[in-house]
């Protein structure tokens, strides 16, 4: 079995590493530093770490103020709280003024598991994607998380949302991989149809493609790690070169990856699209793999949707 690494762990390590490199990196957390892994930065750079307490709205506003003074604040908490709880603050204090704040949502999706529906963000991508000026990053593994973190500290200017998960997922990229802003990557070539996935579902899409291969169905697998700006060129190519698209995400089927792909392709190059994701319902407590089974975030579900396209 391949190594399983949670993207939040990669985040914590990258943040501490980049904190050494750039004095302007600061981190804020709302009493979840041990969970989001910002604690590692906090231990190494206590003078640049602000635990704001359980006050997500104040955290976003404080991060905005820091950004006006040239800091690069990473404000982390669970994805439900960084997006929904503090939405107006993210909108009006960060996004509208185009401030350099990195909003980090760990524990995204049903992969969060036992804590249950109150803690499983299934609408965060839809929310953040709808904000003008916001870029949305959804790394598929720890290597990509690390590379996106380099980008967020060294190059990117403007508001960003970084979506992370709690539980370990397989490492998909080799260590030479370099993330490119707004570019999706083809992880497996295929000619019959395309599986467009993001985050913790990318490795499951790859499994589905392997199974389909055994049945002589050639599925391409695309990782969309920048949900916004979306790689529409790549999606149009997939629509041209294969017979249809299955979107795959640990998120509501409304407004997230499926929404983004359907919106752009219906305008640019209409094609058949099937959606695998959370079926407009809240999750519940349970082991992550049990929840993935129960809510249809599985290779089997992807395969059956894929076959509907052919």
């Amino acid at each position: 079995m391949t190594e399983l690494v949670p993207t939040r762990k990669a985040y914590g390590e990258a943040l501490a590493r980049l904190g050494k490199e750039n004095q302007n990196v600061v981190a804020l957390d709302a009493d979840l530093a041990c969970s989001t892994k910002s604690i590692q930065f906090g231990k190494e750079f206590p003078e640049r770490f602000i635990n704001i307490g359980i006050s997500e709205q104040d955290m976003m506003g404080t991060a905005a103020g820091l950004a006006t003074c040239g800091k690069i604040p990473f404000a982390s908490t669970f994805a439900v709280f960084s997006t929904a709880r503090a939405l107006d603050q993210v909108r009006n204090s960060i996004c509208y003024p185009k401030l350099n704040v990195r909003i980090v949502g760990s524990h995204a999706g049903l992969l969060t598991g036992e804590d249950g529906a109150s803690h499983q963000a299934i609408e965060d991508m839809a929310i953040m994607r709808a904000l003008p000026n916001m870029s949305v990053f959804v790394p598929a593994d720890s290597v990509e998380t690390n590379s996106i973190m380099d980008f967020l500290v060294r190059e990117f200017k403007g508001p960003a949302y970084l979506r992370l998960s709690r539980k370990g997922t397989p490492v998909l990229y080799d260590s030479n991989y370099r993330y490119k802003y707004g570019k999706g990557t083809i992880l497996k070539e295929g000619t019959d149809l395309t599986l467009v996935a993001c985050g913790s579902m990318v490795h499951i899409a790859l499994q589905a493609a392997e199974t389909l291969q055994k049945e002589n169905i050639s599925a391409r697998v695309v990782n969309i790690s920048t949900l916004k700006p979306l790689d529409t060129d790549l999606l149009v190519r997939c629509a041209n070169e294969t017979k249809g698209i299955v979107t795959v995400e640990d998120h509501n089927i409304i407004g997230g990856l499926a929404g983004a792909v359907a919106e752009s392709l219906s305008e640019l190059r209409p094609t058949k699209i099937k959606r695998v994701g959370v079926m407009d319902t809240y999750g519940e407590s349970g082991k992550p793999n049990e929840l993935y089974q129960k809510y249809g975030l599985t290779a089997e579900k992807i395969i059956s949707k894929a076959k509907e396209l052919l």
Partner: protein
Amino acid sequence: MMKTNDIKTLQQISCEVRKDVLNMTTKAQSGHPGGSLSATDIIVCLYCSVMEHDPAKMMDPDRDRFVLSKGHAAPVLYSILSRAGYFPKTELNNLRQVGGMLQGHPDMNKTPGVDMSTGSLGQGLSAANGMALAGKMDKKDYTVYCLIGDGESQEGQIWEAAMTAAHYKLDNVIAFVDNNNLQIDGSVSDVMGIEPVVDKWKAFGWHTFEVDAHNHSEILSTITQAKAIKGKPKMIIARSTKGKGVSFMENVCGFHGKTLDDAQLRDAVSELETNNSLGAEINAEEVSQ
């Protein structure tokens, strides 16, 4: 901009700024005159006497900062910024016009001199804390000033920020409550009382002061005292009158977001001018001498 401590001069500027506020909101037939007039004297004291700032070095990292958390009072800020030389005074004629630089609520990217975008109430104090934390990290000695409304004080985020400033001992934050006891739907005490407001801020770990929000010398001496206090953030509860300076607007809730018609504007301006002993138009250049 050169600063002045001359009270007569500051009163004179306040009179001019109030006229600007009424002229620009009447011209736009839109905007918030009541809360702008109640905040005028505090903001005049800050920009004309207290703050280190310079339109020629707008992004100076060492400058003092001001966050107008009650962003609907933007017209006061615009008047004072234009008088200080951040942009031409003629821009005041384009308040709230499409394509203009003077938005309904402060926009730090569109308007030169605005330190933070605001408009959604309750958020400015957190941003001020962020600026103050950056100042501490960078060992700079600038001060961050912030003005919140008394109605705005009903927002939970204000009290989150109150805790943050005290916890991190942000003595480089000096904030004001524009305590005019009015909000949109009525008096603050009727809608959702905030008293005892001084005790609340004390209990949250702030050093508190009370001032008459329309007495320039009291405002200045209080800020001087506040700057000397270390280890705590400072809150100045400024007892103010909404619509201050125009008798038919004073304490009238309806003038929160309602502008004047031309006849009312004439009456208002003449009252402001009569009540100001000097009366004559002065501009920022004269102030700076």
